[in-house]
């Protein structure tokens, strides 16, 4: 099974204290560290496990800048077979549709049976997976938490629906899936793993290599533009109970009783 996984470099909220720039144009990026989007990491792990079981290869692709190279190498160290970096000045400030279009061009460069994206990115709008599937005219399922290969070029997939319940679907290959966290336990990649991929070449493809009209993507092609970032103002209504542990527990019980939550 030939699998393409789309990954993205994001500022990791666990490792950054995110602050908005005074003018609201962006977050403050001076002291940020980046990592691979968590959902994408699960997608790559899922692809590697599918290939380990059923054969084939995993290609990782990322729309990004030269620093995204490290993200791709991290996924190579996990076990992906090849990586491509899609980087061109014309791609900058793409909206979701623009990113999907760039990825779609990369996907058309080879025959993939399965295209995986993360269900969303930590810094974005959970839109690329679906748009990419539509542009490639592929069947699509979102929030996938289980993938099983069935006979006759089909997958059985489980999707997470409300309340943690699962919805089981059958889907024809080739298809595109967006992967939810928790589908597997991604393997660890350390410095040594990344260093081992130093000799692997990660080609950088721009608009020309992808056969893409630069006017349709990037700032030029964007139909959605960011206007502002802001930190919400502190609201009213929160109350912190005071006293010893027992007193706090008693107050809490009294309030819950008062509202009829417990009898």
């Amino acid at each position, binding site marked *: 099974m030939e699998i393409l996984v789309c990954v993205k470099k994001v500022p*990791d909220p*666990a*490792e*950054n*204290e995110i602050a908005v720039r005074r003018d609201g144009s962006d977050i403050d990026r001076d*002291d940020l*560290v980046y*990592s691979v989007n968590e959902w994408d990491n699960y997608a790559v792990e899922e692809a590697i496990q599918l290939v380990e079981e059923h054969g084939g290869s995993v290609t990782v692709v990322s729309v990004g800048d030269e620093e995204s190279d490290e993200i791709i190498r991290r996924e190579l160290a*996990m076990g992906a077979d090849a990586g491509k970096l899609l980087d061109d000045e014309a791609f900058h400030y793409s909206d979701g549709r623009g990113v999907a279009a760039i990825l779609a061009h990369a996907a058309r460069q080879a025959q993939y049976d399965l295209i995986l994206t993360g269900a969303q990115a930590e810094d974005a709008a959970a839109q690329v997976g679906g748009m990419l599937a539509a542009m490639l005219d592929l069947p699509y399922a979102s929030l996938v938490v289980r993938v099983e290969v069935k006979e006759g070029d089909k997958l059985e997939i489980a999707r997470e629906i409300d309340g943690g319940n699962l919805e089981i679907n059958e889907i024809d290959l080739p298809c595109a899936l967006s992967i939810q966290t928790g589908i597997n*336990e*991604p*393997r*660890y*990649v*350390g*410095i*040594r*793993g990344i*260093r*081992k991929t130093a000799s692997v070449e990660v080609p950088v493809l721009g608009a020309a290599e992808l056969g893409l009209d630069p006017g349709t993507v990037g700032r030029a092609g964007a139909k959605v533009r960011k206007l502002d970032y802001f930190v919400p103002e502190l609201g009213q209504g929160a109350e912190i109970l005071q006293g010893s542990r027992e007193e706090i527990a008693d107050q809490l019980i009294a309030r819950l009783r008062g509202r009829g939550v417990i009898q």
Partner: protein
Amino acid sequence: MLNKIDNALVPPAGTAILGMPMAYVYLLITCAGICLFAYILHKRLRPLLLAAPDPRLDRIGERIGKVARIWLGQWRQPRYLLAGIIHIFIFAGFIILGLRSLQLILMGFWQGASLPGLDGSTGAAYNLVKDYAATWVFVACIIAAVRRGVFRPARYQVPPSLGKDHLGEALLVLGLICALVVSESLFEASLQNAAARSGAAVSASPLTLLWAGRLILGGLGMPTLQAVNSLSYFSHEVVFFFFLCFLPLGKHFHVLTSLFNVFFMRLDRGKVKPVRNGVAEDQLDDLPEFGVSKLEDFTWKHILDFYTCADCGRCSDRCPANRVNRPLSPRFLTIKARDHVCAQYPLWGKTAGAEQELVGGIYSDDELWSCTTCGACEQECPLGIEYIDKIVDLRRGLVDLGRVPQSLQKPLGALEKRGNPWGKSQRNRADWAKALAEEFAVTIAGPKQPVETLYFVGSVSSYDERMQRIAQATARVLRHVGVKFGVLGKAENDGGHEVRRFGEESLFLALRDANTEAILNSGASRIVTADPHDYNALKNDYRGIPPVMHLSQLLSQELERGGLALEQGPYADKTVVYHDPCYLGRHNGLYDEPRRVIDAIPGIRRVEMEGNCRDRSFCCGGGGLALFYEPEEEQRIGVVRVSMAKQSGAQVIVTACPFCLANIEDALKIAGLDQKIEVIDLMELVEQHLPVARRAAAGG
């Protein structure tokens, strides 16, 4: 006269059965026994030859010292008093009776065989000693058998998931030992009785097995005595060679391997073995794999450890992970490996070629992540078996395969990017010092602002809100004793102590290199720290940096030379107990310094957690990455520890490690003891009894 005794009966080499001279039979048994033994040893040695290198021929003097103390002196045995004393008697008996057994074997085919030094008066003295040795061995074996078979100490139990009880083998071996000393005594008794009948004056030392044997055989005629003599000789011969060949098949291999295992044992505490002996750090990237994933990846010494384990269970008895039913028992870490070696390298038939993965095979992932590297197991083992290096090596193998628990991946990723496990910004690393701003400014050391003494703060004391108070207290105390110090600020990275011990060697090396550069840039000529994990890392894992001291050492020295005097304060009338942090105590031998500092507070009453203090201290649950790992366990390790503190009657637990403080503070809450017992770091305790603090308190 000796000859008269020796010739009272036909000696074994002169007897014959159905016309066949028994000398040939005994020679045959001896040769066959030795050949079989050599064959078994050869099979057992093979995996050692295929295993990873491990240079252990350095510091011979120290090694001989270890042998003299731990092997010959049986130094660690009485830590478990009854079992230890029984063992000392049996061990001494073996040493003494080995010579006698050799003499007996030679007698079988060599009439008049005698060993140099075993005639004349030395021979008589030896005979006296060996008769008593045989007797005490017999008695000790009976006590041991009753203890194991009837009283069944919990330490020897085998969980059902790990196979059958080992009682059968233990009793069999005790039986074989008894058979050896009884047959030897009957052989001698029949000879003496026969000699006495011939009119020779012979006497057995009273209350020996020999003496009892002579009583039992009293009144028997010459032919019967001859029969008893020949039969007991034959029994001794057969049992001896059976026992010899049986030893390498199980836990009694230690009878043969212990001397070597102790000689080759680890000499340095607190250190971790390199990824692969003989491979320099800058060549590590060329290694296709890190750590241990299959049997032969272990070093030969580690496989010798597996052979040497006597199954005494002391390691697991002291293991905090085992105590709270985490899926780790050091005893079975070894025993499962020994069974695996024996299965992979069978005595008969082909060596199993399958390179079975150890983790996922005999070990589970959780088993290996459960270890806190507290070192209690190694402290206890009477045979010098090592555990930490093996666990670290197995973890390295898992890390290399990417098999790291999810709960550890986040902190490892953050350590890589931010130099601390929480992923906080490096810019905020010295924020703890802001609280001191009104009193004094803490120098950020660097090439432009060199300092003499560098205070290495450590990640947890830099970022954790509670532990920052330790850093603040440390700074105040340092200032009080007149030490001009600086910190590295954002140039400081996590010391990497647990990163290395959790098997992430490459990340450790990166952290170490970054810290080394920053330390050298600071111009410091000494380093001090209040964190035992950083202390151990800087002292034992780093190279080419100035010497490092734990604050308890520095304060102990200051007290001694009069540079520090503590006064009455809030804890002066309280009963306190000191909890030994593993990496201060067991791994670095600093037991007395922190106690000396506590005792310098006038009026304070210090008690001990008897039986669980000093080198028998019980881990708090582990530091560094261990704080992030979520093991399966019945209760927190720290909860067991605070129940020990409660028993000691203390109102305050004093520790000298931020991780201990964190774990014990949590444990007190979980155990519902937080209203009764308080925990405080040594630095905070000292800070509150500084003369200045008192004046300030009085003034304020």
